[in-house]
């Protein structure tokens, strides 16, 4: 069974149709990339899945349940995590704190217990810390553990945001342009992280990406969008050679 299904989803802003009638299904364990020129509606689709936007039409199913209208803060506890195009970390908190915030959806201690910091809260905190340390180790960012995000280089922040999403222990991970702002080496490294996450942690990944090399390196299937509509869907070489896709990118038919 598909882990995520988008069924004819559409999004209008005022009169502008950012996404119209897009359908696709993502299988468990695959890396599913969405490509397309600027303004194709890629990030809009992400914002619909993470419920920042409510689709104007259509349905979204995650793991067999309808998530079209669930409140945005419940998405994480369902098992969907995301990163953002321009990094939305908590800049005035330490790396460790950022990862611990990723554990928020797993915290079940009551308000009064927190006020008194009971032993139940302490034990839960230690458990969260252990999980966060696993992620720190997985991504190899130990030496930045107690630094403020604001003081970290861009490339590291990108990795931290990935780590924060992993702390949710998601089953579906949405990566919004994981390579943007990274240099060639960092992008390659990101590609390895993505491979590891899929292989070692068994997380399904949907990725929006411009860097075709990265897309080619990690994706099982690629969805090409233009102007809010689907152009092509298939393996990355199929999509890259699709005449429609080439026309959308280059603006003319290939010779």
């Amino acid at each position, binding site marked *: 069974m598909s882990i995520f299904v988008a069924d004819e989803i559409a999004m209008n802003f005022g009169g502008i149709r950012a996404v119209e009638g897009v359908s696709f299904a993502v299988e468990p364990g695959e890396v599913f990339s969405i490509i397309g020129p600027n303004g194709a509606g890629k990030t809009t689709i992400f914002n619909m899945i993470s419920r920042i936007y409510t689709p104007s039409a259509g349905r979204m199913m995650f793991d067999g349940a309808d998530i079209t209208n669930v409140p945005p803060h419940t998405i994480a506890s369902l098992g969907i995590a995301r990163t953002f195009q321009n990094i939305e970390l908590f800049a005035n*908190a330490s790396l460790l704190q950022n990862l611990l915030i990723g554990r928020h959806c797993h915290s079940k*201690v009551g308000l009064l217990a927190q006020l008194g910091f009971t032993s139940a809260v302490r034990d839960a905190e230690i458990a969260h810390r252990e999980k966060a340390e696993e992620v720190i180790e997985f991504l190899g960012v130990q030496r930045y553990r107690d630094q403020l995000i604001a003081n970290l280089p861009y490339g590291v922040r990108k990795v931290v945001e990935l780590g924060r999403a992993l702390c949710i222990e998601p089953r579906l991970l949405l990566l919004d342009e994981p390579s943007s702002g990274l240099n060639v080496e960092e992008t390659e490294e990101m590609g390895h992280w993505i491979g590891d996450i899929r292989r070692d942690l068994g997380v399904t990944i949907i990725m929006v990406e411009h860097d075709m090399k990265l897309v080619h390196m990690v994706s099982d299937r690629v969805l090409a969008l233009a102007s809010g509509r689907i152009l092509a869907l298939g393996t990355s070489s199929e999509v890259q050679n699709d005449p429609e896709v080439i026309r959308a990118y280059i603006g003319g038919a290939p010779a």
Partner: protein
Amino acid sequence: MIAPFKVSYRQDLLLAKTPAAKASYAVLLVALAVIPLVMGEFYVGELGGLFIFAIAGVGLMLLTGYTGLVSLGHAAFLGIGAYAHAIMLAQGLPFLISLPMAGVITAAFGVAIGVPTLRMSGLYLAISTLAFGSIIGTVLQKWDALTGGFDGFAVRTPTILGWKIQGAMGTYYTSLIVLVLVIWLALNILRAPLGRAMVAIRDSEISAQSMGINLAVTKSIAFGVSAGITGLAGGLYAHYVRHLAPDSFDILLSIQLVTIVFIGGLGSMHGAIFGAVFMRLLPQAIAMVRDDLPFGLGRTPGLEPSLFGLILVLVIMFEPGGINGRWMKLKHWCKSFPLHRRAASRRQKSYAKSERLR
């Protein structure tokens, strides 16, 4: 100073992380406990007032410094706490019930004002809390039957377990105990998931939400806790002033409270205390030099608020980290002496960031 080796995650959750810190807080506590025995009544009274403002500062710091929600109406919560406590005392309720009740009532008001303002951020929140504060101020003035109107009323002297809480000494010790309790509560919140959720909301609402943080609930709780703590300060304030009158809870007081957290340094509990110390010391300092100022400046009625204004302006322009920020830099300077690099504490060049879309 060398950071101690950490051997367990539990260690990171302790409030005083090193033996040195533990010792210094213990010394401070003992010193505060014996001060009234050696100092004059006037200073003991002033220190009691300082503790009360520190309590309110801690309450507002949770909201403004950690959740990023600015309130320009916290004097109203101080007022609600003060009146609720004083009225309950007058009805014959014992102190140990009426003070916590005052906190709970104020917290309820906090949630009530918090809920409609959930969708607002920054500017709109500041304006609407300002409006809320001035409405409460008017209600305290006009609702004669409950509040005694303009004239107010005298606050009853309570007893705890047969011990009369009166005079400077009584206010001093009760305020100190409540302050310690409130700091403990605030630090507990900050090391628990709630505190992290608050910080997350401060730094990025949109990703806080994607991390599973319920913005509405967390903001309401932050408002409630902050108002509740300020309400406790209000209850104690009633004893400090001994006679309640509505005009003490005006916009100026609200702004003084925000000034405490700003001058102290946003996002630090030390800052809340530093700010309160500063806020209460300044009038004393002014009183000392008042007669020596040239041009009759000392007799200008607006001297005190204008100095607050001036200091606020200077702090925001030149030291946005507040007293706490300056203190951290000083510590860093001492640690790294003589290898200090000026650039280490230099602010990054900043540009206009849009907060319209947060």
